[in-house]
């Protein structure tokens, strides 16, 4: 994984005239840093727990694990305001509850879905945001600033551009963060949306989670440029490269692009370099082992985002070595971890969600034909 800033990435610095004197991360308090760590734990635990539930046959649908990619979700979402919008896709399940979670994990009025709602979705219950009409990541809620995506990759990016255009019309300095994998940047609608956003300098920030593989296809067969961020050059917008394993680097790059977008300077693409821990979906775990050489996987998972961040916190003296070692799910596969690897508040939080999901009813069959059309109400 290359994490040095390429020519593209240096765009950020070029534009401001000189390297950032103060980086966004420098304004974070110790409490923020520890919160970031907890969110990383939470994202990992959510995934691990669902992998286990899935294996026990308790869940339907496909689980696209975000394992090893959590720093991207946590780092991009941490600095957003409640009025900002996001569009998570298949590999971004934790994003639904991470949105605005800084406002309080249990704050009922925060933007972002509750862990209960997200679990209800995974369990396919009537209490899910979309009443379980589509699976897993295909949920959204306008009142929470989350675009409900279809399965069609890159399909939410033009929608994000439309929302950003609405912000512009309202003179509102909110932003929209879209997520997609590197493979999805090959889609035509990716181009159409970014082109439109660039022309109108819309506040759309496209987070490209480059985990090196699009299902069974390596990035070289999806994208002809050295870095996926280079696609930005075709629109004359910043194409930043973040170390997707380093939550602070993701945070810095995001905040730079967000501030720029809020200032009316237009869209950016942020490529976050990372590596897919498992198969494409849980159904692919076995086959993935055939098309991905073992040493590539080992190398790709060498820098677990939890480990990277804990090391940084210890270095800074924000976390003691003891505390750092207390909870150590890093480098472990889902099956190897136990609840003891995670802080109690994380385990407890997820437990609440799962319990809510399990105790929620299934939607009634009579709902099948409901809500095809909205009633005329104006």
């Amino acid at each position, binding site marked *: 994984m290359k994490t040095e800033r390429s020519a593209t990435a240096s765009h950020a610095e070029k534009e401001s005239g000189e390297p950032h004197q103060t980086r966004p991360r420098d304004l974070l308090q110790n409490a923020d840093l520890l919160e970031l760590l907890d969110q990383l734990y939470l994202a990992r635990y959510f995934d691990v727990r669902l992998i286990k539930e899935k294996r026990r046959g308790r869940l339907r649908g496909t689980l696209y694990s975000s394992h090893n990619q959590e720093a991207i979700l946590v780092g991009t979402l941490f600095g957003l305001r409640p009025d900002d919008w996001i569009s998570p896709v298949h590999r971004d399940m934790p994003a639904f509850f991470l949105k605005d979670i800084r406002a309080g994990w249990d704050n009922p009025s925060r933007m972002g879905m509750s862990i209960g709602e997200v679990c209800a979705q995974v369990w396919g219950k009537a209490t*899910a*945001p*979309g*009443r379980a*009409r*589509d699976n897993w990541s*295909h*949920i*959204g*809620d*306008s*009142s929470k600033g989350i*675009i*409900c995506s*279809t*399965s*069609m990759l890159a*399909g*939410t*990016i*033009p*929608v*994000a*551009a*439309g*929302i*950003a*255009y*609405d912000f*512009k*019309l309202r003179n509102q300095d909110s932003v929209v963060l879209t997520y997609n994998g590197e493979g999805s940047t090959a889609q*035509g*609608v990716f*181009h*159409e*949306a970014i*082109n*439109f956003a660039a*022309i109108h300098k819309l506040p759309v920030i496209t987070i490209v989670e480059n985990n090196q593989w699009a299902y069974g296809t390596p990035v070289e067969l999806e994208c002809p440029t050295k870095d996926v961020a280079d696609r930005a050059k075709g629109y004359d917008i910043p194409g930043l490269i973040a170390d997707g394993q380093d939550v602070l680097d993701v945070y810095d790059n995001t905040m730079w692009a967000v501030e720029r977008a809020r200032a009316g300077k237009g869209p950016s693409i942020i490529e976050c370099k990372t590596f897919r821990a498992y198969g494409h979906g849980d159904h692919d775990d076995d086959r993935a082992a055939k098309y991905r050489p073992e040493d590539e996987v080992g190398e790709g998972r060498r820098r677990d985002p939890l480990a990277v961040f804990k090391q940084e916190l210890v270095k800074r003296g924000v976390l003691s070595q003891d505390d750092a070692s207390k909870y150590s799910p890093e480098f472990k596969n889902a099956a190897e971890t136990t609840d003891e690897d995670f802080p109690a508040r994380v385990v407890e939080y997820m437990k609440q969600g799962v319990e809510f999901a399990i105790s929620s009813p299934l939607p009634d069959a009579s709902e099948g034909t*409901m*809500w*095809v*059309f*909205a*009633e*005329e*109400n*104006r």
Partner: protein
Amino acid sequence: MTASATQSQPVNMLTAIRQAIDEEMERNPEMVCIGEDIGLLGGAFGATEGLQDEYGSMRVLDAPISEAGIVGAAIGLAMRGRPVMVEMQFIDFISCGFDQIVNNAATMFYRTGGKVNLPMVIRGPSGGYGGGGPYHSQQNEAWFLHSPGLKVVCPSTPSDAYGLMKAAIRDPNPVIFYEVKELYRKREIEEIIPEGHTVPLGKASVRREGSDCTIITYGNPVYFCLEAAERLASENVQAEVIDLRSLLPLDEEAVIGSIKKTNRVLVVNEASRTCGFAGELIARVCETAFEHLDAPPMRVTREDTPVPWVKPLELSVLPTTDKIYDAALRLVRY
């Protein structure tokens, strides 16, 4: 609003449509228009002429040539509560934005369990008979009628176009609006549109009463059917001609009611035959009013071909007054 052309003198369909959009833009400052060449130029046919001057280039937006991106952006705007009018320069190009329409816009309300509705109209010039060839002659409504979550309309008169456009813009659902371009400037059908005129989605219009057979149609073929009906009258055959105007929702009552009276039905539309809306109507009629039919239901549609360019070929595959007349005669003589 630019000077009103309606309500005082007869207007053609294009003016009526322009006027309806204009009035809705004035009525609701949240509304946005987006499409290719709709601003500075005022649209390939002039359906948005003057609107950019009136409402500014932010609300009447010249989009890049990218139908999927345009529809997607419209979804985003509609999600934020704005009514959006999307122009397809020709309805044929809607194929380039197909996924966003059928999989994203159409199903949003369903997928969010009734939470996120999208007030948007996708409209564009449609239909053959003008020598447009395969890509400037389509009447491709069946694709969208088969995609749950979309409403579909196709008016044939200026006042219906005006009324339905307003209803479509105010409707909380995505509506695909077919504007028969051969009728845009047709002098013979100009009308004075009364102040405050409305036409709800889902109401058919009986264009001619008759007792011997029911001809169900919409769009340009309405006029061929009316012509055929005149000719049939001289053979002492009284055909009832129903202009559906709105295909989904459908005025089944009007359709079935008429068939109960005439006991014979001919469906005419200009889409290609297989899996077109004409067949769907026949199926519905047979399902629900079978015992009222005294003859096999018939349809006159485009042949299952693209719309070829040169006139003799074009007319050979499209419905014509002659073909309708012949079919109706066969129907009543069965």
